[in-house]
C-alpha cells in the first residue's frame, strides 16, 4: 500500500453537511469515536448553506412526521440546552388554496395529517387572512395552517452542531474527499482519502447530492440525483407575517413556490422547478427572479416593495419517490445510508441524527423500525409522495 495508515474510528461520516454534522454530534455524545470527511473547505459548504431554513413536521407519512417532530423538539430547545442562538422561530406553515384542485388536495392531506396526530387545520379564506392579513383575498378559498412548525438558520444550526461535536471529540477533516471504501469480506473496514487510509467499523454516507458517487465506491447504486433549485433573500424588514406560505399551484417553470420571513426580518423564497433541473449546475439563471416574483406579488401584493438582496441555487438530493433513504446496505455490511432527503435534510437532520446514532449502537426502538420500513434502500420506488 502506498497510502499511510491513519487512525481507526468507530464511525466515519462522509459529508459534513446538514445530516453528517449533527450525526457526528450525537455519535460523539454516545461515545463513538467519529471522523467526518468532507471535500469542501469548511462545514456546510455543500447544500446546507443553500437551504432556506423551513422546518415542519406536517408531512404525509409517519416516517418523516416522526423524525421531524423530534427535530422540532430539538431545534426549539436548542438555545436553552446548548446556549447557541440558531434563530428558531415558531411561525407555522400555511398552504394556501386559490383553486378547487388545491383545496381538495390540501383537505385530503389534512385528514391524513390529523390522523398522524399533527396539529394542523383547514381554515377558510377569512380565517387564514386573520392569520396572514396581507394574503390576496381575491379567489382565496382557504388553506391549512400548522402553528407548531417553524424555521431556523441552517447556517447557525449546522455551526452549532459542529462546534458541539468538536467539543465532544468528533474529528472533522475538510478538503479531504473520500476516494475509496475499504471492503473486506463483505464488510466496510475503512475509507481512503488522498491523505491515506482510515480504519472504521461503520461508514455513513451523508453526502447529500453526491450520495450516489459515494455508494458507487462500494459498487452500490443509490437512487439519488440532484435537482437544482433557485432561491433568494431580501433586505430585512419589520415582521409582518409569521408562517411559511406555500402555494402548490403549478405555473410555467415551477410546480410550487414558498416564502417566509426569517427571525431577522428577511424574506427568503424559492420555487420547485418544473420540469426538474437535473444535475449539479448551481450557476444563477435569469429566469428565476421574474418567475417567482410575479407569483409572490400575486399572492401577497405587499411584497412588491421589498428589495431583493441576493439569489443562489442549491441542490435537492432527490429520490424517485420523494422519501429519504435511511438504511444499512445489504451488499456491504457496516455501510449506512443517510441520503436522499429531497430538500428536507435540514428539517430532518437532528431527529435523523439521533436515529442514526441508535442504528449504529443497535438500540433502535419499534417506532424506529417502523420509520425505517418507509426509508428502506430496497423499497419499491414507484410510489409518489403526496406533498413534497
Amino acid at each position, binding site marked *: 500500500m502506498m497510502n499511510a495508515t491513519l487512525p481507526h474510528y468507530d464511525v466515519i461520516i462522509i459529508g459534513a453537511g446538514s445530516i453528517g454534522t449533527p450525526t457526528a454530534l450525537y455519535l460523539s455524545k454516545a461515545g463513538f469515536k467519529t471522523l467526518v470527511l468532507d471535500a469542501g473547505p*469548511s*462545514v456546510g459548504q455543500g447544500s446546507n448553506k443553500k437551504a432556506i431554513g423551513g422546518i415542519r413536521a406536517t408531512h404525509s407519512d409517519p416516517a418523516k412526521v416522526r423524525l421531524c417532530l423530534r427535530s422540532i423538539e430539538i431545534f426549539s430547545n436548542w438555545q436553552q440546552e446548548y446556549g447557541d442562538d440558531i434563530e428558531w422561530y415558531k411561525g407555522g406553515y400555511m398552504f394556501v388554496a386559490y383553486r378547487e384542485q388545491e383545496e381538495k388536495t390540501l383537505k385530503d392531506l389534512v385528514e391524513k395529517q390529523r390522523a398522524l396526530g399533527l396539529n394542523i387545520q383547514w381554515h377558510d379564506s377569512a380565517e387564514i387572512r386573520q392569520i396572514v392579513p396581507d394574503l390576496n383575498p381575491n379567489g382565496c378559498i382557504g388553506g391549512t395552517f400548522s402553528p407548531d412548525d417553524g424555521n431556523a438558520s441552517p447556517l*447557525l444550526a449546522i455551526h452549532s452542531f459542529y462546534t458541539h461535536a468538536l467539543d465532544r471529540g468528533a474529528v472533522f477533516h475538510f478538503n479531504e474527499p473520500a476516494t475509496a471504501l475499504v471492503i473486506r469480506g463483505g464488510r466496510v473496514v475503512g475509507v481512503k482519502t488522498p491523505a491515506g487510509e482510515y480504519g472504521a467499523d461503520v461508514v455513513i454516507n451523508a453526502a447529500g447530492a453526491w450520495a450516489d458517487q459515494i455508494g458507487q465506491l462500494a459498487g452500490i447504486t443509490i437512487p439519488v440525483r440532484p435537482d437544482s433549485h433557485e432561491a433568494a433573500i431580501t433586505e430585512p424588514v419589520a415582521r409582518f407575517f409569521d408562517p411559511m406560505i406555500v402555494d402548490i399551484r403549478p405555473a410555467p417553470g415551477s410546480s410550487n413556490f414558498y416564502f417566509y420571513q426569517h427571525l431577522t426580518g428577511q424574506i427568503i423564497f424559492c420555487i420547485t422547478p418544473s420540469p426538474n433541473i437535473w444535475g449539479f449546475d448551481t*450557476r444563477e439563471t435569469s429566469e428565476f427572479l421574474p418567475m417567482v416574483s*410575479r407569483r409572490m406579488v400575486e399572492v401577497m*401584493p405587499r411584497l*412588491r416593495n421589498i428589495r431583493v*438582496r441576493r439569489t443562489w441555487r442549491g441542490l435537492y438530493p432527490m429520490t424517485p419517490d420523494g422519501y429519504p433513504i435511511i438504511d444499512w446496505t445489504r451488499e456491504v455490511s457496516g455501510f449506512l445510508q443517510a441520503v436522499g432527503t429531497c430538500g428536507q435534510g435540514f428539517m430532518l437532520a437532528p431527529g435523523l441524527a439521533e436515529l442514526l446514532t441508535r442504528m449504529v449502537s443497535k438500540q433502535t426502538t419499534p417506532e424506529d423500525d417502523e420509520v425505517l420500513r418507509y426509508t428502506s434502500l430496497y423499497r419499491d420506488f414507484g410510489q409518489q409522495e403526496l406533498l413534497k
Partner: protein
Amino acid sequence: MADFRIKQHPILPIPEEKTIEFTWQGKKLTARAGETIAAALMANGIRIFGYHPKDHSPLGIFCANGQCSQCMVMANGKPVKSCMELIQPEMRVSPAEGLPELPKISPAAPVHPAPIREIDIPVLIVGGGPAGLSAAIELGRRGIRALLVDDKHRLGGKLVLQTHRFFGSTDAVYAGTRGIDIATRLEEELRAVPEVEIWLHSTCLAVFSDRKVGILKEGEEYILVKPEIILVATGAREKFLAFRGNTLPGVYGAGAFQTLVNRDLVKPAEKLFIVGGGNVGLIAGYHALQAGIGVVGLVEALPECGGYKVHKDKLIRMGVPIYTSHTILSANGKDRVESVTIAEVDSEFQPVSGTEKSFACDSVLIAVGLDPVDEFYKKAQEFGLPAYVAGDAEEIAEASAAIFSGKIKGLEIARSLGKEDQPVPKEWYRTGEILKSRPGPAHHEELPETGVGVAPVIHCTQEIPCDPCSSLCSHGLIEIDKSDIRSVPKFIGNNYCCEVCERCVAGCPGLAITLVDYRANPTLPVVSIPYEFTREALHKDDRVTVEDTEGNALADLEIIGVHSIPTSDRTMIVQVQAPADIAPRIAGIRIQTQAITEPMDEYVPHLSDDTIVCRCEHITAGEIRALIRKGYTDMNEIKIVTRAGMGACGAKTCDALIHRLFREEGVPSDKVVDYTKRPLFVEVPLEKFAGLKPADGE
C-alpha cells in the same frame, strides 16, 4: 437651519437654484431640484441619516455611490439609498431606525405582472466613465450598435468630480484639460454617434449563466439584455480601513467627499482630516481647500506619499501638514466625528506608543486605495459570454489611462466584430502602459541662472506621465521626450527668448511652473505664480507667505497683481516682487492659516473597540480575528458565524479588510477561501422583477 451649500467656487459654476421643499422628521426644509436626497440632507446640515438596527449606532453617508447602503433613509414610507434617489417636492424623509416597515398595500389591490423585456445588442458597455465613453465612441464611429448603461444620472463617471487639469498625454488623452470638461467633451462626441444607445440611472444587476445581463433601466424597468460582447468598464471601489470609530458619521470615502463637494456643491465638512497620500487623497485635499474647507492634515503610513510629488508639494504649500509614516488610530466623537487621533508607525507599520496626537476635525476622508469592480467581468468569463474589461475595472490607474484603455478596447471589440481592418497600433499599447505607470524617481530641482531677462522655473522633478507643458510654450522652449512622456520637462531656451505669455504658468496641471521676470528690476524680479482659488480671496497689496517647492516659507511679500490670461481656464496668476535670491525658489503661496492644523493639547484616547470590518452588519475586527486565531480559513464560514459579508453591500467593503486581517495573523493567502460572490449587485424591489408598473396597484 444651517446652510452647507458651496456659494462660490474657483472652478465650478454655481447653478441658479430652483428650490423645492421636503420634510425631514416632519420639519420643512429646502432642497435644490434634481439633487439627491443625501445632498439635500447634507446641505441642511444633517449628518446622521439613521441608526444601525444591530447596535443603534448613528449612520451617515459613506460612499455616496450606491454601493454601501449606509445612507438609507425612509422616503415617502419606503427605504431608499439616499445617495441614489433624487429628492422630490413634498417628499417625506425620515431616518432609518431599526427594521423598516414595509409599506402597507391593500391585499386586494390588483397586480398585473408583465413579462420581462429582452433586448439583443451587439455590444453592451457597463459603465459610462472615461473608459466606457471612450470605447463607445470608437464603436459608434465604426457604425457598431452598442448599449451603454450607467447607474448615475449623468455620463462621465468620476470625471465629473475632477475639477483639476488632467495629467497624461496631450496627444492621446486631453491632458491639461479639467476632468469635468473632458467628461463633457467625451459625452458630446458620443452623443454625435447615433449607433450608441445610452441608458442613464440604469444599474447592471447581474450577468446570468444563460449569458443574459439583468439591468434595471432608469430605476424602473427590469430588462434582460443579450449582448454578443460585454465590455465591463465599471471602474473601481474604494478600500476601507479598520480603525476605531470608523463608522461614525463624518467618516467618508474620498469618492463620497468629492461627489458631495464637486457634484452636489455641498460642504460635508468644515475641518477635514485625510487618510492616505496617494493621488486620490492628495487631490481630494486640494478640492477641499478650493471649496473653502479646512484641511487639518494628511496621514500616510509609508515613508513617502504614493501620489505624484507635484500633488503633494502643492498641498503642503497650501498649508496642509503631511504626516508620513503615520497612521490613524481612531476617529473620536459621540454621534459624529469630533477629533482624530494619529500616531507614528514603525517599520512594521505598528503604531509607536507615545507618539499619539489628536486633531480637532469634523470629518475624516479615507483614501487608502481602490479595488477593481470586476465581478461582472468574472461572471461573464465564467459563463462564456465574450467579455472585455477596461479602465480601473481592469487595473487601477489614473483616469487618463482609463480613457486610453477604453479606446483600445473599443478598437479591439470592433476588430473582433469584423468592423475594423486595421490592428490596434502597437504604440497605443505602449502609450497605455506609460499612462498607467506609477510615479518614478524624483530628481534634484535645478534652479535656473538668475539675474537677467525672463525664465520659467519648473518645480516638477519627478518622472510622471504628463506632457501638457511641452505644448504650451509658443516657441517650444519646454521640452519633454515625446518617446516617453514620463521624462522630466526641461526649459531649453535662454533668459532672452521667453515672451512672458505665462501659458506654462497657467497650464501646468501640477501648478509647478513659475516665471521670474528680471527685466524691470533685477534685484526685485516679478514672480508669476499659478493660483486656483476664487479671485475674491486675494487682492493686490495683500501680504502672503511665499514658499519653495516643498512648502518651506521663504518670505512674506505683497501681491502686486492678480490676473488671468486668455488660456487661463480659471487658473489665476498671482504676481509678487521678490528679492532676487529667493525669487526662483518661489513655487507657491500659503492658503491656509496654521491655526487649523495645530494638534490638540492632549491626545484623545478611544476606549471602545468599535473597529468595524463589515459596515453592513457591524462586525468588528476583534470578532473576525478571534475566528482566524481559532483556525478559520474559509471566509464563507466566517460569514456563517458572524454575518460579515451577508449585508446589503454584498461583501464589497469587508472582503479586502478580512483578507488583510488574515495577512496580519500570518495566514498565507493561498490557504484562505474567498467569499462566494452572488448577484444582485444592488438591492432591487421585487416588483421590478415581476414587471409591475410603478403606479400599478398603489
